[in-house]
């Protein structure tokens, strides 16, 4: 579905993305992990067109999308949610989702239909149900809980019926309980929507539990790729990341709640 | 019957703006008239900005006339009331104020104290609404000279630019004969400035064909800084300068010009210099500036003028050109009202005004007339003199005869295809 081919991004003397070659097969749920400054978000920004790679290629569904404008890339079918909830603070949850659906239904410039159009309304209700957000549907987006705002952000991306969904730390800034819930929701969405999903996360436990395939980044380069067990056993990863950042036993003990 | 502006406005305006507004106001003019209530004359004039002082004196002039009239019994005991409003010297504001005076203040006719810019706006309103109107300030010739602008129920009690141009051209031709043949102009960039300057230069050329225009510069009206215009004038190196700047603009221009020693380098004809407040506001008035008479207590040198001057000064203001013109305009309006016995229909009042001659302190022969052909004022004292730094600030006055003016005006109208 998505292939990154020898991707390089330099900011002046700093190499943020260092010759990254990765493949994300259709229908998979992958995670990108790595310590702060490993270049995870920079990678996302290149995929979505916010940054233009210094060299290398990004191929999506067989098409080279390198250097395209963000809006064009969105229309190709790549949706994205952001690290800090990126929403429409004065609109209600329902309205915001409907606006996103409307934009996807090519109604963004439509003057002939009242908002929301009937098909838009139906799709919005589906999304609300899918996200489990019916209880807060009528509330102002800027005033709902942080977790709900993050979920709404994901919902806005989902409204575009993406073939590929990029989630930048979907559980960032939440309490432990909420984090697990969020990752469950992500997994459920992925299963039900039949799409390819990539998420960034630096909490290794969440990643091990959720992702099928894991890519570890360090200093902008790929350190390791593989399934949870392979990564868990990879000495380089342990040394570079796991050992230094998390206590293995503590991580194990946290696998309990669901 | 003259109340202060505020008191005057309060009752009417309050009715107009509080809840029940509509019906009460709507019905009221008719009721009031039936009860012999005062006839209201609306007067837009400039009460703020750089020429506010002229608007103030215009208000005083109009009030003087109305007071005298009411004191003498009004129209068989019925009083006349003035409603004065600030038009801020802006055409759109003048139009708005005039409409408000007519529709919400219940004024039946307009005594317009606006300068040229606003006068054309007021003119449209009174033409549109068929309201009797006396323009008292605008000197722009086209207002009454151009048949396209005329309305039979609209009059002008002000000097007319063309009269000043003939008088000024005749006077300035003497300067030209004495060697000042290269002329430059510096006048405000709007209708009055452009028209008046063009007419002056036209008549200067009629009386002294050897005159040559070497340059012109057009400051914006109310422009704060004239430096670039002044240095431009220096570059033209003319023998003489013509300017129809007025009021605060003229004062600022003179102060700034004196820094460049402008008035030592050439003769200057500043047609609006002759207003007493302007003469007094310029801190070091250069002598020998040529100016038209605007208002002067010695022009004409009669007892009536002297007496009017004295009684005007009791208001605490200095009399100006605007003051005598508004006073005269109000006199005509009041006489006409008396003749119609207080009826304010535009045609009736106009018939009572057209061609009328009244006694006036400002007439060359003790009277002034609203000429029948074009509803404009004639026979007022007109001429040119020179400034002197001490009061009374004017000397060497040369009046221009009305026979001369009439001849040349007729020629001019032919040239303009106004006849």
């Amino acid at each position, binding site marked *: 579905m998505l292939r990154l081919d020898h991707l390089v991004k330099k900011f002046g003397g700093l190499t943020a993305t260092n010759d990254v070659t990765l493949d994300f097969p259709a229908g998979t749920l992958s995670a990108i992990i790595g310590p702060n400054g490993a270049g995870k978000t920079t990678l996302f920004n290149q995929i979505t067109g916010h940054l233009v790679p210094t060299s290398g290629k990004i191929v999506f569904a067989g098409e080279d999308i390198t250097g395209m404008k963000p809006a064009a890339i969105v229309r190709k079918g790549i949706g994205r949610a952001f690290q800090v909830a*990126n929403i429409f603070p004065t609109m209600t949850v329902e309205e915001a989702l409907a606006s996103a659906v409307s*934009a996807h239904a090519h109604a963004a410039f439509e003057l002939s239909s009242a908002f*929301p159009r009937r098909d838009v309304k139906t799709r919005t209700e589906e999304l609300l149900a899918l996200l489990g957000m019916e209880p807060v549907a009528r509330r102002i987006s800027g005033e709902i809980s942080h977790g709900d705002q993050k979920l709404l952000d994901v919902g*806005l991306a989902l409204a575009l019926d993406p073939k590929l969904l990029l989630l930048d730390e979907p559980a960032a800034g939440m309490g432990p309980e909420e984090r697990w819930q969020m990752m469950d929701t992500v997994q459920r969405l992925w299963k039900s929507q039949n799409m390819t999903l990539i998420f960034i996360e630096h909490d290794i436990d969440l990643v091990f539990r959720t992702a099928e395939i894991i890519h570890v980044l360090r200093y902008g380069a790929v350190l390791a790729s593989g399934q949870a067990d392979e990564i868990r056993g990879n000495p380089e990863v342990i040394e570079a990341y796991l050992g230094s950042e998390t206590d293995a036993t503590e991580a194990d003990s946290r696998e309990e709640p669901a | 019957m003259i109340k202060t502006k505020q008191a005057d406005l309060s009752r009417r305006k309050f009715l107009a703006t509080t809840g029940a507004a509509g019906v009460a106001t709507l019905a009221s003019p008719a009721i009031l008239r039936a009860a012999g209530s005062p006839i209201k004359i609306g007067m837009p004039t400039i009460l703020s900005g750089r020429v506010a002082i002229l608007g103030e004196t215009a208000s005083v002039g109009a009030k003087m006339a109305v007071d005298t009239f009411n004191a003498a019994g009004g129209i068989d005991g019925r009083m006349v009331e003035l409603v004065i409003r600030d038009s801020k010297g802006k055409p759109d504001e003048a139009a708005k104020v005039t409409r408000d005076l007519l529709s919400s203040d219940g004024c039946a006719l307009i005594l317009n104290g606006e300068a040229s810019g606003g006068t054309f706006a007021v003119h449209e309103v009174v033409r549109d609404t068929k309201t009797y109107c006396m323009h008292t300030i605008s000197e722009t010739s086209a207002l009454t000279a151009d048949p396209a602008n005329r309305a039979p129920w609209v009059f002008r009690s002000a000097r007319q630019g063309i009269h000043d141009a003939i008088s000024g051209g005749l006077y300035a031709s003497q300067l030209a004969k004495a060697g000042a043949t290269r002329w430059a102009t510096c006048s405000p960039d709007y209708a009055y400035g452009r028209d008046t300057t063009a007419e002056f230069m036209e008549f200067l050329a009629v009386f002294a064909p050897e005159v040559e225009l070497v340059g012109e510069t057009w400051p914006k009206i109310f422009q704060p800084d004239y430096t670039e215009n002044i240095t431009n004038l220096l570059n033209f190196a003319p023998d003489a300068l013509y300017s129809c700047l007025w009021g605060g603009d003229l004062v600022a221009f003179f102060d700034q010009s004196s820094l460049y020693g402008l008035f030592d380098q050439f003769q200057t004809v500043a047609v609006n210099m002759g207003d007493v407040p302007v003469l007094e506001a310029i801190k070091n008035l250069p002598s020998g500036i040529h100016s038209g008479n605007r208002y002067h207590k010695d022009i004409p040198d009669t007892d009536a003028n002297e007496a009017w001057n004295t009684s005007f000064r009791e208001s605490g203001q200095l009399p100006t050109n605007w003051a005598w013109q508004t006073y005269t305009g109000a006199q005509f309006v009041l006489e006409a009202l008396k003749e119609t016995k207080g009826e304010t229909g535009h045609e009736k009042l106009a018939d009572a005004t057209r061609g009328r001659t009244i006694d006036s302190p400002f007439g060359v022969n003790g009277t002034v007339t609203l000429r029948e052909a074009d509803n404009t004022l004639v026979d007022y004292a007109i001429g040119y003199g020179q400034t002197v730094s001490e009061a009374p600030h004017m000397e060497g006055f040369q009046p221009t005869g009305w026979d001369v003016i009439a001849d040349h005006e007729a020629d001019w109208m032919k040239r303009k295809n106004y006849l």
Partner: protein
Amino acid sequence: MNLAHPFVRAAGLALVCFVLLIVLALVYPGTWLLDTLTGLFASGLLVMSLHLLVGYTGLVSFGHAAYFASGGYIFGMFLQTPDIVAAFGAWSVPVATLLALLGTGLFALVVGLICARLSEIYFAFLTLAFQMLLVSVIQGLVQYTGGDQGLMGGIPRPEFLGLDMVQVKDRFVFSAFLFLAGVLVIRLVTLSSLGATLRMVRDNEVRTAFLGVNTYRVKVLAFTIAGAVAGLGGVILAILTSAAYPEWAGWAVSGEAIFTIMLGGLHSFYGPLVGVVVMRFINDVTLIYTTHTDLAKGVAILFVVLVLRRGILDWIIDLRAARRGRKEDDNVSRALSKAGKEAEDAAS
């Protein structure tokens, strides 16, 4: 016809208002109220259209008066051309109105294409600069525009459909029609899918772009529609005054329009209309006591901005919402205490 459809309801409301205004014109015996309302219609369209930009799209334009003036000038200059009036005859006024609408829309489109590239303050300055440029052009082209004098000599307005614009009532009815049509257009925009897109751009332009929407086009479109409707406001004023003046494009008109919106309420659709009426009221009431209306306006602005911190209609809506909220709380607490009492009763 679906009466529940928002468009139908909006159009119906406009129609009802129009009928009411016609009735008013028929029964009202004088001129004062009708002329005052006609003037309010003109400023109403100016602020309502600006509100589409400031309130709905988050674009702070300092130069909106330019389109207001443009409408008046196109209308006036068209009708002051004798050949054109001769050619169109009784249709001159409607044609001139349509032309003013389209011409102003085109003008706004061109300026919008340039301005919409910039953000916030620079957008504001650029719109201001275009407005000033328009004023100097109007003042410079004396032989076409009459310069600082405005369009002199009156605007001929041939009778059409039995309406004579010199008559107060006829003029009022036609202006009311234009006004309601303009407001309806804006209402439909805000109710449409495009309206939702405008609000997205206002709330978060970057995220909107990330939903695949070309936000530049959104802004240009909003700017064009708002400009055209403002032009219609200029037409009303040109009909009322039978003239057009360069001051209509002045910065003071733009400034006062922005203030009127804030005064009335930035977050409610009809807020700006409340603002227009209140503004006129402040103006007229203070005139009773003093000529210093600016002082009163200044104090009112400071009060609204620094104390209320929102416009009048917003404030009223918030107040009502708060009261309703308190009422609900009351109900809850009453229910709770009742439940408690029952529990106590049961226990005893």
